[in-house]
């Protein structure tokens, strides 16, 4: 009698030691797979961008076909890891807010001025639904244009920022 399939086998993990990640001459991401084939440009996709940003990274080729899955970028060789991390940072731009200067507006339609780790920014929200409060004080914000921001733990912000944020969530 045949055994049911092992669903774990369905995921094609790339062997982190036999995978090579580079940048080509146009600074595009290039991957050399364990089978020796070279692909560029390669697009990394996070399977869990919010909860496990550094695990289960799918690599897609230019035709959007899956080349394989990287289980954890920690397992990669150091040079490969830093290139992939850099590319991921570029593909997923979600600055972390460190301070909220001002929130103006009513009924959730608000204009924000905030400080992030990559500079100060101002953005607009169209409704309270654009703010998602998660467990542990984590807050995700999506602005009117589709930009995203993150607050790692809003309880750790300064009291003024907390007060401003709490009027909105």
């Amino acid at each position, binding site marked *: 009698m045949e055994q049911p399939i092992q669903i774990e086998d369905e995921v094609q993990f790339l062997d982190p030691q036999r995978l090579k990640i580079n940048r080509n001459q*146009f600074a595009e991401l290039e991957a050399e797979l364990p089978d020796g084939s070279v692909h560029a440009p390669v697009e990394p996709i996070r399977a869990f961008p919010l909860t496990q940003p550094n695990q289960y990274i799918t690599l897609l080729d230019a035709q959007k076909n899956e080349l394989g899955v990287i289980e954890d970028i920690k397992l990669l060789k150091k040079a490969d890891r830093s290139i992939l991390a850099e590319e991921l940072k570029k593909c997923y731009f979600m600055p972390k807010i460190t301070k909220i200067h001002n929130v103006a507006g009513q009924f*959730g339609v608000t204009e924000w001025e905030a400080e992030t780790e*990559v*500079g100060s920014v101002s953005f*607009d929200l169209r409704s309270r639904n654009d703010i998602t409060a998660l467990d542990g004080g984590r807050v995700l914000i999506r602005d009117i*244009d589709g930009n995203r921001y993150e607050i790692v733990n809003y309880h750790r912000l300064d009291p003024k920022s907390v007060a401003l944020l709490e009027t909105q969530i």
Partner: protein
Amino acid sequence: MRSRGFSRRDIHRMARSAGSRTTTRRPDVEMTTLEAVPETLQNQLEDLLEGEEEIKVAISTDLRFDGTYGKDWVLATDKRLLAFNQNGAPTPDIQNIALETIDRIEIRELHGNNFMKVRTAEGAFEVARYSKRFVPKFAEAAPEIELLIDKVKPEEVDTSKRPRRYVDPRRKKVRCESCGRPIPRWSDVCPNCVEKGKLIFRLLKYAIPFWKVSVPALLIMLVIRLVDLYPPILSKSLIDDILVPATMAITGGQSVDPGAFGQLVMIVLMMVGAHVFTAVFSAVRGYMMTWVGQRITLTLRNDAFRHMSILSLDFYQQRDTGNLMSRITQDVGRLRDFIAEGLQDIIGDSMALVYMCIIMFVINWQLALWVLLPIPLIILFSFYFGHKMHKVFHILWKRYAGISTILASTIPGIRVVKAFTREKYEVDRFQEQTHMVFEGEMNAAKLWTLYQPIMTFMTYIGTVLIWFVGGNQILNGDLTLGEITLFMTYMTRFLQPVRTLAQMNRRFLRAATSAERVFEVLDTPPSVASRGDAIELPNMRGQVEFRDVFFSYDSEKNALNGISFTVNPGEMIGLVGHSGAGKSTLINLVTRFYDPNDGEILIDGHDSRDIALSSLRGQIGVVLQDPFLFEGSVADNIGYGKPGATRQEIIAAAKAANAHDFIVKFPDAYDTMVGERGVRVSGGERQRISIARAILKNPRILILDEATSSVDTETESRIQEALGRLIQGRTVFAIAHRLSTLKHSNRLVVLKEGEIDEIGTHEELIAKGGTYANLCEKQTELSKIRAW
């Protein structure tokens, strides 16, 4: 080609004027692709540009390559593209790319940011990084740069690989055009730019037709408020003129004035009279104002629904049903409260305060000032407390909403919950949520239980002040006992109107928001409407011609990309393609649920936009994949498209649709109620009822959108048979994934990403061996497997 741009000489001038320009709130959002270049870049430009080279495109970014916020630049002249990237160094990195080496401009869309890339023969370079805010600007700049490229390229350019970018003028605006502020998700109007006063004035217009009732009601109220103040004055004269003299007479050993009893009876009767008066007229006024309020609701509700019914589908697509329903139910109700009650309350309360102040100041202005002393304190406290309360209640409201969410997902999904034995998980989740509600309620209670004593205490301060100051005045002979009693009574009466007026602002704002939401419906023009000079087309032949039709739902992706073909009267066209290929969109344009963004659709040689909507849709029949049955009987549903259809016609249509047999088996046959609260009707039965509906309408053009995809094989053959009868002598557009459904088709149109991939008869396309032949082969294999 428009001629715009500026030469090197203009740069200095422009930079200067840019500096002195009065800044709007966010000048960087302005959609210009020729921004003023800052002075810092100019010296470098001097060296880079040749004599008469003009800058045609100049756009700034808001992100740097290193992922920090900052401003980099992309410039294009008629010779080259320049990218300035400030990479932490004092002078920026400059990419200087000659236009003739560029093939096209590409946009790489990522999460939270985009890159603009330049594709040359060797590869693609990144030239700019920007946040999503600048998406429209770069989308506009890209084709402009490509136009510049085409002009310098010696050979003909292959533009086929370039995406056809199309900016839809009807695209839903996210920011106000005049002030740059965000527009709420639920609205199309900028709340900041709507003048609140105008809104309220417009609201009042709805009350004007009823002025014959509302003005007398207002006058009655003013009189009531005045009469209301009379009993304390009566008490005062009772005390001062009768009781105190009598007491003094008795303590002095003299006899009481014999007329005193008569006066006492008189005053008591007047008190009773005043109360009876206010009670009777309050009731009369209440009835009058309820009538006015309900009349306003009636008008507003009907106006809103009538207008909603003529609005086009895109209006509905951008808003969810609950949101639209609440405008007609809740918002209209809120407006009624405001027009009928709110405004009159404000007037009445203000007047009552004014009356009381006048009386008190006339009697004793010093004591009146003391009475007013705690009022600002009370107002401030109400404000502060209102704010706190609002916050607590908002949190509580969210937690209650959480309970609803859990219930709304578990009750319909109970089969899944049970099948995966997750009952405990759901119960735990629910308990957690109810516990949070409990905590929220207790937090609110903490505030509430504090509020009442503090408020009482503040009022008490006022009372004590009156006792102290007034008592002192009595001792000095400046005040009488009756007067101090009057002040006491007015002090307590002062509070209610003060509190009402303190909340006026919030009430006003809430009404203004509701008004906006209702007026948004009333003010939105239908995007698809009959023209004033629209023609009637009573006897349509059913010829449909598509001429280079473009359509996009969201301006980001074209659903139709230049469709051209002609359908002859009586011809059946099968539409084939993957989901998202544009089949349904094509049909939506034939029925004019939407109008094309570009190109035209001709029906019998007339542009469909010139034909009266009623005339056009009156001759189009639709059978959808999941047909909708209205609340009502089976007969009502079949006759929906032909008001006044005879019973015989309805039965005939049902017979033709193979529906008669199962309908007569329903408990009440044709009178059986279906819809939300009616009997359960299976998918195949619903389908046949909707076919009967279409047959009865006898349309010239028939649309079958996946009419047989959700039923079993046996039912399908019955539906096929019914459809076979229905399509006779009509122009038919049929969509089906199951290609066997399309066997009656005269021609097949294969769509692929909004374009026509193949067109021809079944035999032609099979012979061609293209996409259709491929699909057919796959489906044949599939049916073999099924058979096996």
